């Protein structure tokens, strides 16, 4: 276990990760909208322009294809660009550079050219900003080969995984979450990184396996705490990395518990849960004591009204209902 040192917020853990990596390696360059003078719309990049100057912290126009394309060009030349796309809703705006350039160039050039970029983006689901400012879209980048997809749930993971991503030779999509930015947690004083591709069992339990990530982890842990009182022991897996998926940890857990509930903030259809459940059924169906259960927002855009948002997003209650369903099945 790493020795812990300080309590920091998720946002400042990210800021530290960027700061340290920029200090460590001159090739690390940030680019994106409002990341410099403004310090990012949620202040994650605060102070970095002042410290590292405008040649390393680049405020860009509102040109998402331009941002990703430029980052790819930088990466090809050996720089380590960390691009920010404000919200995942804008990933469709630069989908072409992501899908057709970022994750194809190395493959098509037979390894002669590569473009390991990191793209940071912040999920703003459930904030009342409506259908175009609330999407998650993670499963899209699992479907298309070549992305490393990360969505941490706490400051410790956020810092360690972002540092790993920046040092990685792969194309990374790094999903932050506005709900988590002010969340506090302990991190070590010294340098550390976290291996990409490994899930973490946040809570051991013998009755049911629950997978989750990003903002859903706390919801699930709270639900598990409540269910504990009813005698239900949940095993909670924080996926941390969505792709590559840590199938081993999931399957082993399900073999033990015999039940699987997947929880996600993105839509369910062709989603994270459907991938996990399919793998579980392909490889461990005989261990299942109950049909698998998928929990996700309804398959509609997010409405703006706060009254509806409450019904739309995940809640502890929905998670508890899902877990009870698999438990009560038999």
């Amino acid at each position, binding site marked *: 276990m790493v020795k812990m040192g300080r309590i920091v917020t998720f946002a400042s853990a990210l800021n530290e990760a960027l700061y340290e990596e920029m200090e460590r390696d001159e090739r690390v360059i940030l680019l994106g*909208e*409002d990341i*410099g*003078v*403004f*310090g990012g*719309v949620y202040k994650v990049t605060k102070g970095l322009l002042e410290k590292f100057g405008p040649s390393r912290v680049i*405020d*860009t*126009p*509102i*040109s*998402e*294809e*331009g941002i990703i394309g430029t980052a790819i060009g930088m990466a090809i030349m050996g720089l380590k660009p960390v691009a920010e796309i404000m919200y995942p*809703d*804008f990933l469709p*705006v630069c989908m072409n550079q992501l899908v057709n350039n970022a994750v194809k160039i190395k493959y098509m050039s037979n390894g002669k050219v590569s473009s390991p970029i990191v793209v940071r983006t912040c999920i703003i689901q459930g*904030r*009342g*900003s*409506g*259908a*175009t*400012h609330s999407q998650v879209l993670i499963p899209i980048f699992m479907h298309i080969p070549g992305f490393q997809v990360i969505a941490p749930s706490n400051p410790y993971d956020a810092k360690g995984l972002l540092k790993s991503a920046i040092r990685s030779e792969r194309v990374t999509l790094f999903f932050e979450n506005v709900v988590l930015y002010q969340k506090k947690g302990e991190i070590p004083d010294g340098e550390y990184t976290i291996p990409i591709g490994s899930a973490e069992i946040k809570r051991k339990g013998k009755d049911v396996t629950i997978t989750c990530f990003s903002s859903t982890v706390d919801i699930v842990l709270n639900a598990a705490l409540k269910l504990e009182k009813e005698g239900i022991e949940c095993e909670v897996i924080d996926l941390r990395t969505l792709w590559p998926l840590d199938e081993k940890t999931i399957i082993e857990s399900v073999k033990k518990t015999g039940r699987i509930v997947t929880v996600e903030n993105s839509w369910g259809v062709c989603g994270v849960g459907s991938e996990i459940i399919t793998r579980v059924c392909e490889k461990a169906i005989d261990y299942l004591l109950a049909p698998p259960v998928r929990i996700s927002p*309804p398959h*509609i*855009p997010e*409405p*703006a*009204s*706060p*009254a*509806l*948002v409450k*019904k*739309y997003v995940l809640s502890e209650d929905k998670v508890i209902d899902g877990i009870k369903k698999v438990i009560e099945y038999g």
Partner: protein
Amino acid sequence: MDIDKLLWLYKTMVRSRYMEEALLNLYRQGKVPGTLHLSIGQEATEVGVIAAMQKGDLLLATYRSHCPALAIGIHPKYIISEVLGKASGVCGGIGGSMHLSEPQLGLIFTSAIVASQIPVAAGIGYALRYLKRDNVVVVFVGDGGVNNGDFHEGLNFAAILNAPVVVVIVNNQYAISMPVHKSTKVKDLATKAIAYGIEGIIVDGMNPIEVYTKAKEAIEKVRSNKTPILIEAKTYRFLGHYAGDVDQPYRSKEEVEEWKKRDPILYLRNIIKEKGFESKILEIEAEAEKEIADAVEFALNSPYPEESKMFENLW
């Protein structure tokens, strides 16, 4: 310009200003979900252009569109309700502050994805011509939107399709924190018209009379020639990008104060006053105050939409 028009411009700007001040208040009280983008300071541009539109002309705009929505005829009570996510909102509380539609009054939609409304405007313009309707479509975009691919593709489509589209760049000098002169090497954004073989016009976006007059001319030209025109209105937002943008580290207080001296409402107020219509002004102001207070009341007292509503209109 006739006094009725001047009074309409004044009244509309005042109503918008009061409405947005009320919205800001609600925001500060924590009653606004999501975010809030105000037009305060830019009213001359938005109201002036809309005043120049004819019946049947259509509008597409951005997330910063409470003022345009009001100017085109949506009652503030429905706008405020929408911002609060109430069932009585112009989009039933489903759209929210950034997504307003009232096609019957000409407002097709407001887009929260920067510049994405421009290709849509090209299609609407094409349809207007195809359907032999003698109308134009006006589309607002910010100075920041100009650098987006959709601006480029949309303007080019409008041009080659001979679509009656009037593209209005609301150049308020900043895209969130990005000053316009850092986002492009071009001095005047209207210059970009050259790249599409169309006409570009610069207007003083703080002057409602100039905006109205030049927009009117441009709109009528587009109506008869079926060739788009690009208008750049130079203006300024007095407040932050969104209601939460208080510090505004990207610009100086002095700069803001300098621009505030050119407040379009004060400017027009003086002109009308000099013409001897002060009583009209006071009447307008009192009415607007009451109207907005009532609208806020209405919105606050309105119910939220039923849960079932969110499952409607997906397709």
